[in-house]
């Protein structure tokens, strides 16, 4: 087959150059990831040790700065609480939107407002919770881990709702209609048919929301505050990995800066792990 128009040398060169530029820019896009991981490993690995994970930060000016035990435990506690609040509520609201809210004005209104919530900067959430829960005497004045959990839940909620809605919509209506035809009431259809079918996607969405919440600093600044010791009391101040890093990053002491790198490495490992699990899970359970 002969070409209708011959490709001139100039056009061929432009083509090759343009494709080269695109490839180069894609490489540029990957450079930051490589550099971040490289420096995290280079400067953070030195801090990692068994003691690092099992001792609390001491706050001592001259002596041993301690490790990040309270930060790790605190992150786990606060994020767990946030998940317990955000995932059930989020899934149920997504269920509402899909089962009863499709095409209805109220459903559209809820969906629109949830979309609005996705765009709210996390610091505005933190400020809101600070004023409503921390400084007012509504629930008792003071910083508390559970207040941080609530702030993170607010952050996770729109993500869970939106991703949940997408996943629930993917469940074929035929399944619903079959169940209804067999005589099941609406609530059984929703809870016993639709939810189980969408479960893998819901889990993926929740994992991604958790990964995002685990890395957030701004909301926790205002709500759970930074503290040295390990605490299992959600009603008191609680340390967390992002706050630990934020506190150490502005320090002049090399040991504290190194601890910041070690904590950052730990946090990134945690978040990357969650993200990768979510993505792999998603690939294995793809519907179509």
């Amino acid at each position, binding site marked *: 087959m002969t070409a209708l128009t011959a490709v001139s040398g100039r056009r061929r060169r432009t083509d090759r150059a343009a494709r080269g530029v695109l490839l180069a820019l894609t490489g540029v896009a990957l450079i930051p990831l490589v550099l971040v991981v490289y420096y995290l490993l280079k400067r953070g690995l030195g801090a990692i040790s068994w003691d690092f994970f099992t001792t609390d930060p001491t706050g001592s000016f001259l*002596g041993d700065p301690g490790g990040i035990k309270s930060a790790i435990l605190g992150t786990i506690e606060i994020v767990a609480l946030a998940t317990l609040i955000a995932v*059930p509520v989020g899934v149920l609201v997504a269920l509402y939107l899909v089962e009863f809210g499709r095409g209805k004005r109220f459903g559209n209104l809820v969906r629109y407002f949830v979309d609005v919530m996705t765009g709210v900067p996390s610091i505005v959430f933190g400020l809101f919770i600070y004023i409503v829960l921390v*400084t007012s005497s509504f629930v*008792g004045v003071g910083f508390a881990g559970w207040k941080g959990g609530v702030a993170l839940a607010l952050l996770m909620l729109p993500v869970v709702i939106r991703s949940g809605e997408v996943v629930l919509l993917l469940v074929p209506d035929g399944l619903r209609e079959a169940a209804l035809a067999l005589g099941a009431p609406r609530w059984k259809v929703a*809870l016993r048919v639709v939810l189980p079918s969408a479960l893998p996607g819901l889990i993926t969405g929740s994992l991604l929301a958790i990964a995002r919440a685990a890395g957030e600093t701004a909301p926790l600044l205002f709500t759970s505050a930074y503290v040295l010791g390990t605490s299992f009391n959600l*009603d008191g101040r609680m340390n967390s990995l992002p706050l630990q890093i934020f506190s150490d990053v502005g320090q*002049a002491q090399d040991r504290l800066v190194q601890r910041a790198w070690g904590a950052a490495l730990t946090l990134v490992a945690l978040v990357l792990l969650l993200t990768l699990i979510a993505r792999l899970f998603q690939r294995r359970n793809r519907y179509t």
Partner: protein
Amino acid sequence: MSIIRIAPALASVAALAVGVAACGSGDTGNSNSGSSNSSKSSTLSGAGSTFAAPVYSEWANQLKSQGITLNYQPVGSGAGIASLQKGTVNFAGSDPALAPEDKQGLTKGKAVQVPMFFGAITLSYNLPGVKQKLKIDGATAAGIFATKIKKWNDPAIAKLNPGVKLPATNITVVHRSDSSGTTKGFTTFLSDYSPSWKSQYGADKDIKWAAGTTGAKGNDGVAAAIKQTEGAIGYVEQAYALQNHFTFFDVKNAAGKYIAPTLASTTAAGDGLKVPADLGISTINSPNKAAYPIASQTFVDVYHDLCKAGMSQSVASGLKKFLTFGLGQGQSVAKQLQFATLPSSIQSQAMQAVDGLQCNGKTL
């Protein structure tokens, strides 16, 4: 599937947990008090001055064995007082004495300020090529921080340091971005020697700095900024400067002598101080011949009636123990960190104030 069955149960458990936690935290101002299980141990929370933070954290380490856990947040004197006003901490660390507007916001009772120790605010700089000790006076410092003097080899600096080869590097001014007692002390010193500084910038915990200067959080942040930038100059408390091996200026004091910040010159700043009734002393620009001119005092601010302000009995007595320790054994700990101890007259007045702290009308 079991997860669907569990989900509503999980949600209600979560709601219950939140509800119980919310009901349980009715104790205003000290949600930590419930976490201690023995009557001998208590958890204190404080916030404020980064200037004093090194000493408070060492005291906290030593008091752990006595069952007292101290959580001190070094957020700057301004935020410390705001936290005390809001009731989110038991005590505030503040370098400057309480101003009338501060006292106005402390509505849970009468406020008491207890002087703790003195420290030197060094004028540290990062000039690796200059080995000699440099001299400076208040007017030149004001010129630098107002960005009127832009390079290290400016004639104003050279005049005070004859024979020293100063590089042509740009001066990067580093100051505090948060509301800071260290800033207030330093700007008070500058205002005393430069009328143009006084009128344009004034002396306060937080001022509007000139364009082109770098702001950092806390004494540690300023130290970090100085460390990372060649040609930088900033004001940091001495413990931070020593820890990072900074070089700092000898500063001209009111008597006309160039004084280096040392334990002796800082202590000299506290000699012969007039002590007002509310213990609100100030050691900046002391007239003593041997005194370092930028020495600052620091206070712990508490309410006179601790329990009425919202603390439990155990926390209140823990706080009193902390303050008593600080004014007693703690003074030698402060000295190790190069902070000057209180002269005995001020120390006894401070102890009196601490002894008078009450819980619901009864002395602790």
